[in-house]
């Protein structure tokens, strides 16, 4: 038996035994250290005569690889065993609670405004705003509601001065006036925002939210109005079918004017939109009155169109099954948590408005 074979057999059998890491390292040193058995065999290569040298070198390499692999796998084995042994000790109760986190929420009114904006964005409306404090002219007179008009009684107005010139806007309609005074037609805007009436009971809050819509162009007629609202309601409630009813009504700033009801029914205490025989008023609308267009210097023989005003809080209540309007503004932590939306739930068209 050559030296090489002897070394091989001796160490293979050694490595088969139970070894700890230091013992393996000792074997590694014995073999491959500077003066190790294998290392010294390599040094011998030069001294071997040419006819045998090639085979010797080749055998030596095979044995070297074999032993090295064996050592490596032995090391691996021992290390793994040690880790596994450690892991046993590291077992924790994984059912303990995670580190605490807090979750913020978006108010249902804000979410609803975003939903409505997304819906109208699709059909080319842009968002306009106006101040909460308005002058009497923009809130009433310019909207064809002159002083002493009984229609003013329908708005219980908060005033900021004795002369009743400054007030908290009673509707978002003054944004129509501001928009049309600022730019030239066509106009295609919505204006969501806070509105105020000095009215406070179970179903009325002194502050609430409206979204105004205005579309003025050449030849915009009541068919467009109906189409627009039909689209809005369908998209907003995310239903395929709705029942909608236009009822003639009166607003000084539109003519003809209508109130719009949607059909619903109650199932297990929940409102189902689009079915049933009950009607719920959700908005007022109409064709912008020529007097209003005159007040904002738009030629009513060339331009015409529609406007509407929707109660946002009411829409939110319907869609999300909220019963009490007053609770919207009560800031009860439990309520906000319950009805609020995750901030990542941005209503978009491609993803759908709500989950």
């Amino acid at each position, binding site marked *: 038996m050559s030296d090489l074979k002897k070394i091989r057999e001796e160490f293979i059998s050694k490595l088969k035994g139970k070894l700890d890491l230091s013992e393996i390292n000792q074997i590694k040193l014995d073999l491959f250290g500077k003066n190790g058995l294998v290392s010294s065999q390599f040094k011998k290569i030069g001294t071997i005569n040419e006819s045998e040298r090639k085979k010797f070198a080749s055998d030596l390499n095979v044995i070297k690889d074999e032993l090295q692999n064996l050592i490596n796998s032995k090391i691996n084995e021992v290390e793994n065993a040690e880790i596994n042994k450690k892991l046993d000790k590291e077992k924790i109760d994984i059912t303990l609670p995670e580190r605490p986190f*807090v979750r*913020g929420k978006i108010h249902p009114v804000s979410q609803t405004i975003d939903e409505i904006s997304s819906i109208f964005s699709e059909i080319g409306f842009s968002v306009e705003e106006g101040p909460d404090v308005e002058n009497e002219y923009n809130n009433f007179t310019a909207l064809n509601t002159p002083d002493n008009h009984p229609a003013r009684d329908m708005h219980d107005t908060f005033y900021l*001065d004795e002369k009743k010139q400054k007030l908290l806007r009673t509707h978002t309609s003054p944004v129509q006036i501001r928009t049309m005074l600022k730019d030239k037609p066509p106009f295609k805007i919505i204006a969501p925002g806070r509105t105020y009436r*000095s009215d406070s009971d179970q179903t009325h809050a002194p502050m609430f939210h409206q979204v105004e819509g205005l579309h003025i162009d050449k030849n915009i007629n*009541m068919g467009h109005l109906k189409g627009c609202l039909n689209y809005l309601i369908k998209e907003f409630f995310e239903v395929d079918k709705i029942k909608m009813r236009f009822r003639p009504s009166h607003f000084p700033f539109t003519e003809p004017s209508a109130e719009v009801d949607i059909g619903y029914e109650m199932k297990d205490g929940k409102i189902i939109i689009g079915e049933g025989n009950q009607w719920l008023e959700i908005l007022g609308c109409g064709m912008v009155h020529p007097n209003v267009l005159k007040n904002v210097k738009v030629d009513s023989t060339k331009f015409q169109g529609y406007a509407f005003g929707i109660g946002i809080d009411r829409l939110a209540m319907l869609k999300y099954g909220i019963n009490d309007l007053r609770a919207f503004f009560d800031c009860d932590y439990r309520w906000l948590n319950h009805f609020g939306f995750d901030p990542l739930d941005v209503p978009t068209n491609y993803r759908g408005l709500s989950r």
Partner: protein
Amino acid sequence: MKITFDWLQDHLKTNLKEKHLLEQLTNIGLEVESVASLSADNELFKIAKIIKTEKHPNADRLKVCDVNVGEKEFKKVVCGAANAREGLITIYAPPGATIPKTKTKLVVAKIRGVTSYGMLCSESELNLSDESDGITELSTKFEKSIGKNFFSKSKSNLIDLSITPNRPDCLGVRGVARDLVASGFGKLLELKEKKIKSTTKQNLKVKIIKEKKQGCTAFGSCLITNVKNTESPQWLKDKLISVGQKPISAIVDITNYVMLDINRPLHAYDADKIENGIIVRNSNSGEKFTALDNKNYKLDKDMCVISDQKGVLGLGGIIGGIRSGTELDTKNIFLESAYFEPRSIRNTSKKLNLDTDAKFRFERGIDPSSIESGLNKAASLIKEICGGEISKIDIQKIGTHKTKIIKFDTDLFEKISGFKIPTKEMIKILEDLGFKCKKEKKYLKLTVPSWRPDISQEIDIVEELVRITGFDKIKIITPIKERTKSTLTQTQKLFHFLQRAIASKGYLEAITWSFTDSNYNDYFKQTKKEIKIINPISSELGVLRNSIFSNLIMYISKNLDRGFKDLSIFEIGPVFFGSSPGEQTTVVCGLSSGKKSRLSWIDKERNVDVFDVKRDVIQTLIEAGYNSDKFFIDDNTPNYYHPGKSGRIFLNKDKDQVAAYFGEIHPNILKNLDIKTDALIGFEIFLEHLKFSRKKLNDQRPKFTTSDFQKSERDFAFVVNRDVKAQDLINAISSVDQKLISNIKVFDVYEGENIPDNQKSIAISVTIQSPEKTLNDKDLEKINNLIIQTVENITGAKIRS
């Protein structure tokens, strides 16, 4: 406006049923608000008389009444009304009857130990009026009717219509009937008007003073002499009761009936109480009179009054006076039928805070040509029921009402409505509504009926036609999905971004009133002007908010009282700095209270602190696209923040506008408002102060470069005076070499042992990396020294050895 189908049928002939009627009313814009059945067991309600009252043995406020309900035995009824008295004629509901208002069914009940058989009803309980103070009082004329049914046997439901303010004509049953007929609901019946044929002169002189602001333009009248005021006949009582009115006496009932039937308000005076004729004039400032509501009114200048020589008799078109009121023994009646200007009526009633049926009608506009027909109708009825002699009608006028003519372009209908109807149909509808139509090529020359003050231009005609034809005829035109303009402006985008960014930091979004309690507001208003609401709903909501904090603190305190401790809430919305439009800014305002990691098994609990909130604000600003390298922070904050634990943030070192404040709420405020929490930290971000770069966010991003050369981290500890800010050190370091210094991090702040008093040690780790080469020891040494030198020079720091 309350009507019944029965009454409508006085004016129209139809084969259609009530069900159709209700639908049709709503379809043509006369919205049905409610339908109430007055007929349900209404034969149970009896006219009754209280014979005797005794104090309830066990209750001070209650009385035990013996009531004559037309049966042999008197009924014992326990009653709490103050006006329950012996001799009063009222309305009795027996056990088994259902009270119309409350829908509760009466039973024989023991009230504080005394058995009560039924109940005496107030007007409001019977839906007769809103009068709920005391039980119904019927006049002594009802003495004969004791035991009879109060309600008629009519099976007609009470229909309550919501009439829009532009339609005074529909405040009379006939007006409603006319609209219905135009929409194809039957045929309008001709009014059988009985003209007064009299030879007697109306000898009570009436004069309308021609003066500025005269609110009366026409005054018609007649005298009816030798009448005997009595109880109304059954048909008239039934009619009034059927629409929820309480019959009083024939004269009053007749004027009410004419008003409800053809919307012609009238006023009956006791002619013998008028001294020397009627003068219609403007009031003088300070004039007084007692109205029929038993209240004394002091008048301003220029209110339209009906007066005689002695003084004011009544407010024209609003309310009559006690002095000339008709009574049971009134013999001679002066009947007024006038036209009062809506504007005058409105001014007066608003100033005096007076609301009456007549006022409601006159301020909307009464048919000026109904003066005569009203007098004819009422006087004839009075004569019929109360006897007497009618005089000729006298009408004084100081102006004439012009008949309105509209030239209507028939094409306008389709242009507005989007659908077509033949001209023939238009004419039919308009004629049914009372217009006179004359066709002139494609125009219609229309004479507007005198009862339609709301119609003055072409668009009004379109409305009539659309309304009567039906909104369901309008075709849906599906909107085109096309966008030519961006939906949101940059500021609006930022609004939505900040809203969601703050919420994502664990804050619940609240929406609170734009107004607030001045007591709370005072803590946060600083030098801003207090903006009072003239007519607040309550003093706690009396001012516009100068800061969102006032409301948020109030509500967080309510939530703390509910037992929640660790709360984070925010609101984004307006705050006001003036009472003119536009004097408002948008603020994102938040509050965080309590502790972090409360009762955690794993982390140590601690109070929320200013650096938690600072992180929320800074992170939000960075997420919104602002470069934190440029931020500048100092400690100059409003006095509602803790002076030592608060800061303000500028987006850059120019410090032009404050982007945000953050800090602990001043402990004094918590003490004064009695807010109990471990900690309360707030912030405000000012939306309009956040400037936009002209470039879009995408274009602001620098070119993407990385360096693979070795980086090295060096730690420095500087000892500085306590008032030196970490920001100063960081700025000094970054000024050394912006290219090589890629990161600076404060990792320790220390005061105490080994550090001199009034000084502190700040330890900073600086990452140095070149984009071009691996720095050698010499390079690093050089920059090290430069950092130390610069920091020492700028801040007076000393490097700790």
